């Protein structure tokens, strides 16, 4: 147990001392995953909304595909993005491999279907007649749609938090397309792998604690949202 206690103690000291190596890695993680999730929102929310509300022949298959997005293995995404961005690949000319751009791309591919799948479920959980009622009060189709999304907004926010938690914790995609290069593409997860291998447990632990804190915050937010379900007061005598 000593090894734990020691490592944690040193880890906390490292964190408090504002060690630049650590914080540069954390900041990069937040930027990469943050940008990936933001882009994922821009793509995923419209896609999820459309799939949730539209009706067309192959809808069932499309929905199944998007729902698989919740279970996409990061390493597989990493593989596809790597090959795409490699010199022989279709987008090799971008020169993005082993740069943060590649990492954002891979995590975007992970985040977008995630957000789309959750948006799809959130949008479907709002009764469809809600939009009809809005229109029956004079709203246009667009206004009714925005209202529908507003009603689902809590679930949407939870979707964002879940997506962010998922991508910032993954290591498979980001190490393959980023390369874990010191000062350039090293993020929390890839750094933990390296530092553990090097026997630098304190550093690894410090990064691990930060990652746990981030994951915890994301989940706390989601839990709060889920618990804020409508409360019914005892019905008054009318």
């Amino acid at each position, binding site marked *: 147990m000593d090894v734990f206690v020691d490592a944690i103690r040193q880890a906390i000291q490292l964190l408090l001392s504002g060690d630049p190596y650590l914080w540069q890695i954390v900041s990069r993680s937040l930027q990469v995953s943050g940008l990936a999730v933001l882009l994922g929102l821009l793509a995923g929310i419209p896609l999820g909304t459309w799939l949730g509300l539209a009706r067309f022949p192959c809808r069932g298959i499309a929905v199944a595909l998007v729902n698989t997005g919740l279970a996409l293995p990061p390493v597989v995404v990493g593989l596809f993005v790597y090959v795409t961005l*490699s*010199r022989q690949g279709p987008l090799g000319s971008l020169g993005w*491999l*082993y740069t943060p751009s590649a990492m954002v791309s891979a995590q975007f591919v992970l985040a977008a279907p995630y957000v789309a799948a959750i948006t799809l479920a959130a949008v479907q959980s709002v009764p469809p007649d809600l939009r009809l009622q809005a229109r029956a009060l004079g709203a246009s189709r667009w206004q009714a749609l925005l209202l529908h999304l507003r009603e689902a907004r809590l679930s949407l926010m939870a979707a964002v938090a879940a997506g962010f938690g998922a991508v910032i914790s993954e290591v498979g995609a980001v*190490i393959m397309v980023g*390369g*874990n*290069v*010191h*000062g*350039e593409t*090293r993020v929390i997860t*890839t*750094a933990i*792998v*390296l530092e553990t*291998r*090097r*026997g630098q447990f304190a550093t690894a632990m410090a990064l691990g604690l930060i990652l746990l804190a981030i994951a915890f915050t994301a989940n706390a937010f989601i839990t709060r949202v889920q618990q804020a379900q409508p409360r019914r007061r005892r019905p008054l005598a009318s």
Partner: protein
Amino acid sequence: MPAFREAHPEYRVRVIAVGSGEALRLAARGDADVVLSHSPRAEEEFMAAGYGGARRQVMFNDFLIVGPSGDEASRCRRLDVASALTCLAESGALFISRGDDSGTHAKERLLWTAAGVEPEGDWYLEAGQGMGAVLMMASEKGAYTLSDRGTYLSMRERLRLEVLVEGDPVLRNQYAVITVRDASNLEGARAFAEWIAAPNAQALIGEFGVERFGRPLFSPNAAAR
């Protein structure tokens, strides 16, 4: 491994493949009974600290400096590593380091020191990954790196890298087998160490790679002084 199992069916061997640095650290923690590594300095520290029982050399292979092909690139081709590295540093060519405290990384640091160059700057990338991954990176980016011959040869078809420097004696990479003093299975450890230094195993080592690459990847030297 199959050969060892044939010779000593009474032992079960679990192989953990990691870099030398990590291997020795594992052994120091008691997570291994016997270590095969190629990081002499780290090994000496390991023995000095009293973790090791007996250490003997087993075989050696060599390292190479590899890099992109083309006339531009071969400007720095030399027979000795030190001047090649100096040339690379001055030209600002991209160099990728293992950056993971592995045996290869330790060797690389030694070479820079010997060349009198402090490797830092935009051209020097510390990858923090294994040999295969670093070779792929070097191939993609058109960069130089230090690699052991075995890994390079096994991946050569998929890489756009060719040899810049080889044969310099300082590139020799010695492997040793060390039994861990407080091993839980000391008997098995000793059996393995003896077996690998014995003529049968040494002959196997000497033949390894000939079929595929036309030349052996390792030179057995347990018997040599």
